[in-house]
Every structure is written in structure tokens, then in C-alpha cells.
């Protein structure tokens, strides 16, 4: 469990940012969703503090595609910052319903999608082998070890 973003991300790295907006300019999530891009996330972290960011649901539009990192002229590891924000937000319970649902699914079935009869039929049609059985205990162990057990209900 982390209390502050700055335990895992060096706050001084944010000072390297001079707001050129190449990150947001190249952000595919920002292009399609009504979100603020990485530039504004960085600025909010710096000027308004972490609370302003972790409580905002729009951070979850990020797909961690790493393009912002590739384009950043100052080589700021933006995905690392965003991952830290996700973790902190999740700890606080600021987890969108959709993501919570997916996590629950992984915990309970070991898969991130619902496998129904249609899916299985489709697989047959495409001559794909039947789906392997999953060791749910092992998955639960992983989820516990990563700290996810404290965020979602694993029982």
C-alpha cells in the first residue's frame, strides 16, 4: 500500500515538464474520449497535488499505450506516473464500475471476459481447441500478492 505518489514516482521529474503538450497531442485516449491528456495530469499533480488527480475518474481513460513516453522530449516516464495514480486511486476505492467488474471476473473465473456458450461454439466453428482449465487458487494467490485482494472482494 502506498500513501503518496511520490513514494513510487520522483516528484522532481515533474519539474522537467514544460507543458509542450506533445504527450496529449499524441494520446489516442485523449483523441477519442473527453479526457484531459497526460499534460494536464502532470500539471494537476504539480500544481494541485495528487488528491486532485486520484479522485478524478477520467484518469482511467489511459490505456498505458506508452506513446506519451515515446514522444516526451524530456523523457519523463509518464506511464509510470499514471500507473502510480491508478494504484493509489484503486486503493482509495476510486475504481470505475467497469474495471471493478473485470477484476471481479478475473478473480472469480480467471478470465477477463465472460465465457458463455456462444463463445465456446464460435471457438468450435473456428477449429480452436477447447479452453484449458484454470488453477483459480494460483490466480487468487497472485491477486493477493499484488495487493489486489485488499481492493476487491476475493471471497
Amino acid at each position, binding site marked *: 500500500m502506498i500513501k503518496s505518489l511520490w513514494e513510487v514516482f520522483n516528484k522532481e521529474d515533474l519539474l*522537467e515538464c*514544460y*507543458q*509542450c*503538450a*506533445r*504527450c*496529449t*497531442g*499524441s*494520446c489516442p485516449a*485523449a*483523441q477519442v474520449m473527453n479526457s*484531459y*491528456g497526460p*499534460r*494536464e495530469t502532470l500539471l494537476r499533480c504539480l500544481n494541485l497535488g495528487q488528491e486532485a488527480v486520484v479522485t478524478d475518474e477520467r484518469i482511467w481513460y489511459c490505456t498505458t499505450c506508452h*506513446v506519451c513516453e515515446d*514522444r516526451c*522530449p*524530456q*523523457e519523463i516516464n509518464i506511464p509510470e506516473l499514471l500507473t502510480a495514480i491508478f494504484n493509489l486511486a484503486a486503493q482509495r476505492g476510486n475504481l470505475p464500475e467497469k474495471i471493478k467488474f473485470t477484476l471481479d471476473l478475473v478473480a472469480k473465473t480467471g478470465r477477463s471476459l465472460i465465457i458463455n456458450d456462444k463463445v465456446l461454439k464460435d471457438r468450435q466453428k473456428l477449429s480452436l481447441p477447447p479452453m484449458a482449465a484454470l488453477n483459480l487458487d494460483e490466480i487468487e494467490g497472485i491477486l493477493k500478492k499484488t495487493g489486489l485482494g485488499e481492493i476487491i472482494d476475493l471471497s
Partner: protein
Amino acid sequence: MTPKKVQRKDKVEPRIGVYVCHCGLNIGGVVDCAQVAEFAAGLPNVVVSKDNLYTCSEPGQELIKADIKEQGLNRVVVASCTPRLHEPTFRAACQKAGLNPYLFEMANIREHCSWVHLHDKEAATAKAKDLVKMAVARSRLLAAQEPMEVPVIRRALVIGGGVAGIQAALDLADSGYQVYLVEKDPSIGGRMAQIDKTFPTMDCSICILAPKMSEAGRHPNIELITLSEIELVEGYIGNFTVTVRKKARYVTDSCTACGDCTKVCPQVAPDEFNAGLSMRRAVYMTFAQAVPSTYQIDMDLCLNKHGIVACDKCFQACQRRCIDYSQKDQRITLEVGTIIVATGVDVYDPTPLTEFGYRKFPNVITSLEFERLINAGGPSGGSLIRPSDRRIPKTVAFLQCIGSRSKRSNIYCSNICCMNTIKDALLIKEHWPETKILVFYIDIRAFGKGFEDLFQRARREGVSFIRGVPGEIIEDPESHDLTLLGENTLLSQLYRYEVDMAILSVGIEPRKDSPLIQRLLNLSCGSDGFFLEAHPKLRPVDTPTGGIFLAGCAEGPKDIKDSVTQAGAAASRANILMSQGKVTVEAITVWVDETLCQGCGMCLKVCPYSAIRQDPETQIAQVTQASCAGCGTCVAECPFSAITQRHFTDQQIYAQIEAITEEAPETKAVAFCCNWCSYAGADFAGVSRFQYPPPVRIIRTMCSGRVSTGFIEYAFRRGAAAVLVSGCHIGDCHYINANHQTEKRVKKVWKKMERLGLDPNRLQLAWISAAEGNLLARKMQEMDGIIEAVTAEEIQKTRELLVPTKKAKGKLEEEDPS
């Protein structure tokens, strides 16, 4: 103590006068000056000891002069501010009273004591006593020195024929000196010749440059040496021998530039002058206004490359028979007194920034390519056309900071691009007023005279400035139109602009071959790759190597006006040296005791200035006094103690170490700080009143490279709790690279301490610049912690174990004065 040659000559018993300055309340408010003076009176050889309010004042200086005469003083110690401030003042006073200025010594009890220990008067007074004791101990061993004079040849070499080089050459030539102007390209003119207009006045670039070029070409005092490169530089301030390789031109000087040869040449290649936007022949002239106005053959392209005449079309076409395929490269030797480096810059190539599609999308061009397109003498005759379809664009985007301010390219601001773009935008508006122009920027830096006016004019004329550089350029493969994706940061809104053409406002960077020039001339480079000036504020065109000056962009990105200004300054600095005809070198150079030198050659390897050579027969080291800058790193390296640095002898430094460690050494640390960075950094900490604990005593050497392993070990053997060695940051050494030796030596002692089971943490190495007073204060805090942590057993163990290594005993016995 083994007395050395210098000391033997000087047998007169020292009579030392000590003057403790109150500096008003600056020192007197913290340090008990009367008590310090009283303490000094009890030190050996001190015959006069006084404290006064302002020693640097006229009465203060008169007092010293009177005492020299009346009391027969032959050494003077002033305990006041930093020697970097008033050493010249007091030296001059001593000289006036008939005392050699090198017999003066200073104790810095203001910047290094009263100002940094404001709240601990007792400890500050104790430290001041130690500092005075150190100065007195050193002064006892000082010797009179005579500054040396060397003659200066009254001829100059200017490397690089851009506007800076041309201006410097003209200024020097007009002052009456013979100037050699060496240019790598076939013509002088440089970058300025490629540019269409200049900002902020919108003057035609070549129109104002061409007269200067031809003036340089016909000036009786200037010898133009084009298509030539420097191969070797030997010598020292005032006396350089330079070897220049003059490449074959394959066209003789009788060329009248009629151009008949070009018309028949079958070989073509991209034209470098037009940034590759047009083609040229193998026999060509770079541009119409070229000086010298002579064609040349690009032998790499010519069919006669391999010495066999496969094609003689140009030879046949030339009525004056100027073509000579058999010409060979020549080597010329020049003897000059001063050198001006005006090697200019390269333009950043944005190909690696794949998101902008340069070289992939034809309508994405650089600002230099734009200059050639908009120039009437350029490939399109002055029409701004899209490379894809030669249509005049209706919407043009400029992208700023391409290749500047970025860890992915160059971290610095390239200085010229903002204004260049504004000028370019106005040029487009001038020719095609309907064009829509978008400038994508991060910050517009319009800082110079007339710059803001031009910026506002561009806005009034309808140029849109949008804050936020695009993250991506997308091309329509059919029309080759471009779409820019990005964010307008002021509106926090994403944008998507369709444009016909995008111009990348590229930055400038050091020449690719500048490391070669750096090596040839012994220059230093900053982390950005540009040549370093001797002092960023007060010696902005000098280099650390005497007699060599910088002009133009070689020193850092700058516009034409600044380049010309700097060229004038460099010429003036060179002029000062040459008009004097001689130069005085401070007497801190080294000399070799021939009876001790074994000819091992270690000193040659560490000398940053190549000032030492070995006698071909005896192998004994010989020092070229005029080349020696006085870093003393050879002295620290010599395994036989055969080298002595004037005014910074081993004995003098050992005496300072002894003075520090005489009483309660276990509570103190000995610090060695280089004059230019760390000592100055400590001064800066004082000026800034950064408070730090008092147990560290600083010994000043010119360079940290002067600090031998013997000094460090001796301090430990005398019981010092800790030792700090501090110099300029690697790459910023005032003596080019002498601090690499510092690092090497400290590592050596660390290893030895580890081997002996001693705590190597007690020896600290720190790179502290003159501007890093806060860093120095932090280091002093750290040292205090280290001193606290050291146990008496550890110190005793060190005293016993850290003895001179056996194999070098001969040397270290001598080094160890105890």
C-alpha cells in the same frame, strides 16, 4: 624537512607581519579579531601582529607598507576576505613597499569563516586562528617569484569563414595584423549566406554579407585559405605553429567564374548549399556571390576520381585552361600569435523524430530548407512551393523547438528559432498575404532589441500563435496534405489542423567535427558540446588556453548580431595580446629538478596542455614555461618528487596540513579545494550566508589535480578525522581535464584504505562548481557527520597503517616532511 633548491637560495629568516581585518562587522561581528591577532603574535617568525577595521582601505594598506619598511618585514599575511577578491590589492601594496608580491599570503576568515558561522562566535574565532596559523605556516616557506614574459607573434589565425570569422578577420586586418582566414568549404560566407532575410530588421542576408565577404577577399592583410582544414596545432600563447591541409581545388586561380565548365559536366549530386533541394554538377561554384569566386571540382563525384582522365569535358570547355586534374592536397605551416575559433554550427536533423515524418512526407521541411525556397537565388527562384506538387501552399504550419530543449535531442534552447520563425512567417505574408500561417510553440522567446516588436507585428498581420506542439503529423497519401494533431494548452482543447505544408523550426548544434577542433586546440566543451569560455560573465570570448579566443556559434547558439559582436570582442582580445607584443605569465608554473627526474614520462601523460616534453637523449622532462598553465597535476603525478610548482610547493601545502592538525586533529577535516570552482563555491556559500558547521579547514590549490595521494595520506597520518578533495565538475575543469587525475588519485587512496581495513568514507570527493554554494554547505554538513562518527581507535589505526607504500619509498620519504 628536506629543503629544496628554492628554499636553499632564500636563507634569510622570515619576518612575518600579520594583519587581522574586522571588515567592519562582517568579520569583527563574529570573530574576536583582537584575540586572533594576539594568537598570531605568538606564532613562530611573526614580528608584527595587528587587527584593524578595514585593511583594504588606504590607511590599512599604508600601515602594511610602513611596517614592511620600518620593521623589515619580508612576509605579509592578511586575514580578511577571499584572495579571489583582494589578493591583487595587497600584492600591489607589498610591491610598492619593495616586497616581492609572491611573499604575500592571505587567510580567508570572512567567506570561509565569519559569514558561514554567524551564530557560533567561539568556534568561528577558533577556526580563524587555525586559518591564520595555516597562512603563517605557508608564508614562512614562500619564495620570491618573477612573472615571466613571452613574446607574441603579430599574426592571427581565424578558423571558420562565417560571418563571425569574417568580422574577426576584418577587425584584426584593419588593426594592421596579418590574418589567415581558414575555411573548410570552398567559399567563405557560412550559414548567413544561406539565409534569405535577417531578423528583426528583415535585411537581405546576402546583400549585407556579400560586401564583407569581398572585403575579406581583397584585404591586403587577409590571406584566405579555403577548402582547408586545421591538422595540427603546436606551441603556446603568442607562439602557435599551425599545420593546415589545403585540399586540391582542381581549378586554378585564373578562373574567371564564367561557368562554361559546369554546363558540360555530366555528373550531378544534391546541392549542399541549397540544403539538397536542387542539383549541382561535379565542377561547380557553391553560390553566385562566392569568395573566392573560383570553381572547384568535387573529386568524389568527378569521373576522373581515380587519377585516370575518363572525361575531359570541362577541361575542353575552359578557354583559360584553368582545369588541372592533377592537383594535389598541400600542407601549409602558419606561425601565429593568436587564434580565433569561429567554427560555427550544424543544423539539427529532425529525421529521428519519426512522429513528424520528415523525409517521409515531402511537404514537411526544415527551416533551413525554407530559407533556400524563399530565397530568390534558391532552387525555386524565391517561390515557396510544396515539394510534392510545386503548388504554393495556402496553409503553412511552423513547429517550434524541434531539436531544442529536449533530452531526446539537445537540451538547450537554440536561441534563434523563435525569431527566425516570426521572420519567416512575415516573409510569407509579404509575398502571399492570403496564406494562413499557424505557429505551434511552447514559449516564444523574443528577448532581444526589436524582437518583441516583430512578434507583435506578426500577430497583427494575422499569424496565429498556438501554444502546444503537435504530437503527430499525419499525411494524406493522395494529396500529400498534412494533418496536425495536438493540444492547445491555453484552451485545454485538442486540435486537428489541416495544412498544406509544415516547417520544422530546427535547432542548431555543435559541428560534428568540433571534438577534433577541441582536441587540436586544447579547448574545453560544456555538456552541450559547445566550446567553453574562460569565464561565462567576465571572460566570455577567452578560452582556458591562452591566446585562443571564441567567436560566433562555436561558443553557443546565437544570432548574427551577437556573432558579430562577439567576433569584434574576440578580435579586440587578440589585438590586446598582439599590440603588446609580449605576455606576462603568472609565476605558478612548474620546473623540473633534473637531478631527480628519472625520465619515466608520467608527467607528460597527465599534462592537459602538452607543456612537457622529454629530452630525446636523456629522457629528462622539460617544461615549456609559456604553455604551462599551473594546474600542478604533473607535480602530484611525479613518482620522484622531481617537479615543483612555483608558489604551490609540496612543502607549503604540507605546512598547511601540519598547521591544521597540530591541535585536536580528530575534531577536524582537511579540505583541498580548487581555486576556480570549489574554493569559489565556498566563497559563494559565504556571500550567500549559507550556514554550515565549522570543523573543515580549506587549503586552496589552483586545481584539484594538484592534490597528490601523499597530501591525503599525510593528513590522515597526522590524525585528521576526515579529508575532502573537491574540484570542478568533470568536463568543466578549468585545466581542461586535470580533474580526471584527481578522481584517479582519490580512487587509489580509497582502494588502499579498503585494503588496510580503514573506512574509505572518511575520504570524500566532491565536484562543486563556483555557483554551487548550497552544495558546498551541504557537503560541509556531511563532513561534520563523518567527523562525529569517526572513533579514536579508527584514527589511531590510520596513523599506524596508512604509511607510504614500500615500492615508492624513495618518493614518499621525501614527501613526508615529518
